[in-house]
């Protein structure tokens, strides 16, 4: 039997990695990810986790070493944030291109300059197209569950792709939350040891990471994309199994008081907690508001999203990242792209908020909904608005 406990969310991820019996971890310290790797290092030092911990000299080498450990068949984990993720950029595309099922936690944090150690989602949004499966956690429980689940998804032989678990820096990574930790036996039954398909083995030599000439590159990239698109079914399978086993349900798009809502708020990550409170208040005041939270970010759940928002008049997207000189926030851009082929669709309004650790408050959600109402009246959404900017 598992146990109910109170735990810092970073440590819940470390626990999940331990329960997943990871073989290898290569990581470099960066705020606000440090507690995850510190705890893992301690687990290895205490003999509680039988793994190789490679304390590398940079995030670039962290992901490089992860490619090495994964290529010999080791269940591999790493964690990073912000500048560290940016330094890994090159390696992220290679890890997915080589089809190495590495699992990585990101404690989402703003990007320099100016230097900011505080949370937003600029870091992972810059890596949107790196070919990894990407999910967002709302709570500590999510963080624990998703970390275990993603090993199973990534390593599935129909998938063989790396996966990212996003947790908001500080507002999630550093808070202590009540959560239910499943027992080692139950996790073992859910997640069997990794059975790699192809590894570096002197008895069966393979060449991994060759040159792809123009005659073959497109085909390889198409295969890779098909694998990522196909991972959707596996994600759903794994979530169904998890729900059956442990009673906690996960969906690509998660709705809250959304069924009859005229205005839906779409966002990803832990600010949905605040959004729930704001929605409850607004509902009491008679406003028809709900939420659709993006859980699965890659592969993007087009059909789920279309179904989730089809009855709304407007979707107000809260993006914690800004596409400079572009159409606004990445979540809104994806949603607009997702809805564009439909003849009838809700208006999509984009709000940039919560950059570099700025709180997104209940009042901000009021503002967002009021602005969206104005947009509905005028019928023109524009590109985006930045919320909470001090004049």
């Amino acid at each position, binding site marked *: 039997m598992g146990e109910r406990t109170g735990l810092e969310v970073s440590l819940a991820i470390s626990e999940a990695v331990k329960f997943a019996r990871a073989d*290898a971890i290569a990581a470099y310290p960066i705020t606000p990810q440090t507690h995850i790797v510190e705890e893992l290092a301690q687990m290895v030092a205490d003999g509680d986790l039988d793994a190789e911990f490679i304390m590398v000299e940079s995030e670039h080498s962290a992901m490089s070493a992860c490619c090495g450990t994964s290529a010999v068949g080791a269940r591999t984990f790493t964690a990073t944030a912000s500048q560290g993720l940016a330094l890994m950029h090159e390696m992220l595309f290679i890890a997915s291109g080589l089809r190495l099922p590495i699992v990585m936690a990101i404690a989402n944090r703003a990007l320099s300059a100016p230097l900011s150690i505080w949370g937003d989602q600029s870091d992972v949004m810059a890596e949107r197209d790196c070919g990894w499966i990407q999910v967002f956690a709302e709570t500590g429980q999510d963080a624990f569950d998703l970390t275990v689940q993603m090993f199973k998804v990534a390593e599935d032989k129909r998938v063989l792709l790396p996966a990212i678990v996003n947790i908001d820096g500080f507002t999630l990574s550093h808070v202590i939350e009540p959560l239910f930790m499943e027992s080692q036996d139950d996790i073992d039954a859910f997640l069997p040891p990794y059975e790699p398909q192809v590894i570096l083995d002197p008895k069966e030599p393979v060449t991994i990471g060759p040159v792809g000439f123009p005659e073959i590159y497109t085909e390889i990239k198409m295969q890779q994309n098909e694998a990522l698109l196909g991972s959707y079914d596996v994600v759903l399978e794994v979530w169904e199994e998890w729900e059956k086993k442990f009673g906690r349900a996960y969906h690509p798009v998660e709705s809250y008081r959304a069924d009859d809502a005229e205005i839906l708020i779409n966002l990803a990550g832990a600010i949905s907690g605040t959004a729930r409170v704001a929605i409850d208040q607004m509902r009491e005041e008679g406003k028809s508001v709900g939420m659709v939270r993006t859980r699965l970010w890659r592969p993007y759940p087009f059909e789920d999203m279309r179904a989730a928002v089809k009855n709304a008049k407007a979707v107000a997207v809260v993006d914690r990242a800004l596409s400079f000189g572009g159409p606004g926030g990445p979540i809104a851009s994806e949603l607009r792209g997702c809805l564009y082929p439909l003849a009838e669709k809700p208006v999509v309004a984009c709000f940039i908020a919560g950059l570099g650790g700025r709180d997104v408050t209940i009042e901000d959600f009021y503002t967002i909904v009021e602005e969206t109402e104005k947009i509905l009246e005028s019928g023109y959404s524009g590109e985006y608005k930045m919320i909470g900017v001090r004049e």
Partner: protein
Amino acid sequence: MAEKTKSVEFIPRLLPPFELFAEGHRGCQGCGEALALRQILKVAGPNTIICSATGCMEIISSPYPETAWRVPWIHVAFENAAAVAAGVEAGIKILQKKNRYREGKVNVIAIAGDGGTADIGLQALSGALERRHDFLYVCTDNEAYMNTGIQRSSATPYGASTTTSPTGKESIGQQTPKKNMPKIVAAHDVPYLATACPSYPLDLMNKTRRALDTEGPTYMHVLSPCPTGWRHGIDMAVEMGRLAVETGVFPLYEIVDGRLSLNIKMDERKPVIEYLKPQGRFRHLKPEDVEIIQRQVNEYYEQLIYRAECDANK
């Protein structure tokens, strides 16, 4: 060591004829680097995993769906051969402990060129050496970015003309001396380090054996003559390597547990002009430039002799 080792006739009998770095790769004619790999693989044998940096040897050997590698081989990126090798080594270690990887020693060899080692890969190499991974790092040094079209690296020697350190009215070519990569590695106190050259195959292969037999991080710096980039005859790579050693431009030495010994100690060295002259990249040098290079070579060689004598008397 090498010049005392038996004559060339012995090699075919002593070495496995099977090529683990297979013929038919796309290397330039007369490539000294490919020759070095072939020699290294003959000694390393089939229980070997190669972690390759991006570069000449990577592109010529792995045009998908072909491969020249009969041992497991992985290429990830340019600057991280050492970090990938670190992961491979650590991964095998933990999986063997858990009985999930076949038993027995596996040689993990990282291979990178001079750019992938002395420039962009220096940090990853330093990290992997410091963490004491059990692997061999081979730098096949052809003294510039040959793969991308002969651009200078920090391992390009003084006076060499490359496409980004061209000779001209205002320039002699490369204006700084070659970065001393083995010296940087030696500062990590690795248990075994050697310089080698495929022109001295037995020396190179003996060093490979010794490096692989040594536990912990080991390093070989292999001068790899490049007809394309050095602009000498395609039948001259072996001779250029010999001249590099015989002139003292590239001394062959080992550092074992901190003690340096010269493998071929010459009382009389050939003048450097004999090494420089056949190479197009040095063709523009004036006698006074050659003199500067001769002085640099003399100074460094004297330092090495002194160090070797001191270490011998330790």
